[in-house]
């Protein structure tokens, strides 16, 4: 008799993307310009984990690889109902690209021991790659489904999901498996005030690179282990539609000019 599912949710703290300022010159995000919060997609992953736990029993463990400040996002996850929160934080993990991030997360998951289901948001709103989740699945050698917008059925052995890849696909995956989820999957719950205050007073577990050394060579982590480099960041300029008010004869003349310049331009 199994005792419920061991669920792991991967989360990241990101700047509030609607408020944050971007330095076009240096290609850097000015993190002081906006408050940090949990990547919105990850809240849907957490909600999915909590709903499955409520249905089948088990536990939800949240992991984040981040600077120390991301503790607040982990505490938020505890407040919403996660059972355990682990922060991977170490300067040796900093500057990681997607593969180096995935290696650190996969190592942490191995260290945790056996698991049944890993859930992630479809992507982060700051990096926007959508790669880390599937990479973690590959490193752990388990099946994954990306862009999951519906969980049809779940048992202790398998899960049936709808993946939205433009067209919708129905997948059945054998557990353990990894899912990346979309916003359409559910509406994340708010924590109760009581749970929020309890979580704010609690401590999250902190793991460093040394805690992972048994599971991954440390030179494969962080900046050193990254195979890609950000060389340049370009923000495409946005062209807005413009309206011009024209009246009478002036209008005829002006429209003629515009048409002519278009024709001659070509």
């Amino acid at each position: 008799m199994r005792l419920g599912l061991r669920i792991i949710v991967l989360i990241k703290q990101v700047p509030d993307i609607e408020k944050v300022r971007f330095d076009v010159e240096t290609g850097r995000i000015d993190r002081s310009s906006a408050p940090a919060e949990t990547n919105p997609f990850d809240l849907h992953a957490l909600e999915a984990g909590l709903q499955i736990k409520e249905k089948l029993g088990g536990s939800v463990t949240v992991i984040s690889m981040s600077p120390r400040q991301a503790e607040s996002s982990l505490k938020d996850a505890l407040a919403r109902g996660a059972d355990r929160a682990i922060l991977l934080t170490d300067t040796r993990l900093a500057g990681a690209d997607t593969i180096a991030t995935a290696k650190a997360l996969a190592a942490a998951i191995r260290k945790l021991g056996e698991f049944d289901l890993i859930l992630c948001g479809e992507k982060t709103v700051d990096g926007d790659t959508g790669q880390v989740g599937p990479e973690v699945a590959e490193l752990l050698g388990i099946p994954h489904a990306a862009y999951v917008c519906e969980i049809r059925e779940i048992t202790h052995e398998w899960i049936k999901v709808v993946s939205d890849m433009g067209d919708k696909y129905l997948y059945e995956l054998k557990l353990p498996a990894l899912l990346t989820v979309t916003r359409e999957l559910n509406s994340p719950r708010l924590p109760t005030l009581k749970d929020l205050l309890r979580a704010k007073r609690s401590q999250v577990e902190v793991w460093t690179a040394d805690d992972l050394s048994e599971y991954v060579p440390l030179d494969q982590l962080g900046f050193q282990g990254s195979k890609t480099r950000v060389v340049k960041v370009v923000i495409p300029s946005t062209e807005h539609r413009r309206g011009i008010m024209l009246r009478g004869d002036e209008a005829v003349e002006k429209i003629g000019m515009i048409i002519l310049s278009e024709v001659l331009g070509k």
Partner: protein
Amino acid sequence: MREKIVRELESIVGAEWVVSAEEAVEGYLYDETPIPVRPEASSDVIVVKPGSAEEVSRILVLANKHGVPVFPRGGGTGLAGACIPTVSGIILSLERMNKIIVDVDNLMAEAEAGATLRDLIDAADKAGLSFPLHPGDEGAQIGGLIACNAGGARAIKTGVMRSCIKGLELVLPTGEIIRLGGKVLKNNVGYDLMHLVIGSEGTLGIITRAWIRLQPRSAASATIVIPFERREDALKIVPEIFRRGIIPLAVEYVERVLVERVGSNLGLKWPCTSAEYQLIVILSENSEDALLGALESLLELCNSSGALEPVVAETRKEQDEILRIRSEIYSILKPDMVDILDVSVPPASLIDLIRTVNELEIRYRVYMPVYGHAGDGNLHIHLMKWDGWTKEKYDELRDAIYAKAIELGGTITGEHGIGFIRRKYLERVLDRRTIELMRAIKRIFDPNNIINPDKVFP
């Protein structure tokens, strides 16, 4: 005559800023007042859109010369019919005058009257500051917000519109341009005409520019939804919140049946499903620690006062969604609404007011949706389209609620104003001599009764 006035107006503002075709003026005739109580607008109007205080002045001189009424118009978001042209005349729309300059060192915005609330919020945000109030629809314009002394949800900490205004540029009904106050915070010279104009609902002059006090952004905020089994329980704890030293940005009362309906219309889920009657408390503090302290104190209060399990939103998106749902309740009720009441009582008397509402519901066998600014003692009680109800019956119910509010030391309108629709009740709240003084003031400002006639006075 009409043609002559159109030509003269065109010579003041330019032909493109005078609108007189019937279908083109249609969008300028009404505001958000519920249709069953709003007056019929005259469609024999000319809309004029001045670009400066000088142009406003010349328009008013012209109106005085011909004896033509002028109806000032902002964003058209009012709920008392204050901007509706009840007779033929000129609609003066300030929409072109929409510039805002922020003086960061003095925490002051200098805004033209036609700038919208959204423009002001954005301008403050861009300057790293904030405009603390949220007086309703973000399409409302600064001139209208001031003329109607708007309130809204976030008036607890900083007060209503009046308390943010430090100066006005005003065009008098007779055309003179005057300036009252400015960026100065303390000013004791003479009678305070600025505060007389604030809340005068466009009857004493045209506000063309304002100096508005801004605030630094707060460091930490949270929105808490507290559920209760009974209306009385929800409203009873409101004074307790303040007594404990918690001064929230907003304390709003809502009913679950309403917010869930709005949520499903907007594709959002209301986050608190546990009881019918709920308070939304928005906390805004200068540090995470201060926020934590306020949250702890609030939880203690909830535990000792019969509240069910409160939930709390901390991310901006989740907080915004709650406020957005709250802000849209009026829109979903409007199609089936006869009137939105705006009674305001001393906050500790809210419980007596709501008991009367409950009794009236039983006596008349109806549900009156209630929501509003519980922290300010200002509730919106709605009269809906009920089968078989006559105007007399609605009047009877409205009268009973007004009578109770007045008995409790309250008033018939906390923020929406008298406008057109509450004129007949003015004498219920104010004594004869007070109304005489007000009429005399109106005559001094506007000897020919040119600006917004038919408003405020019965």
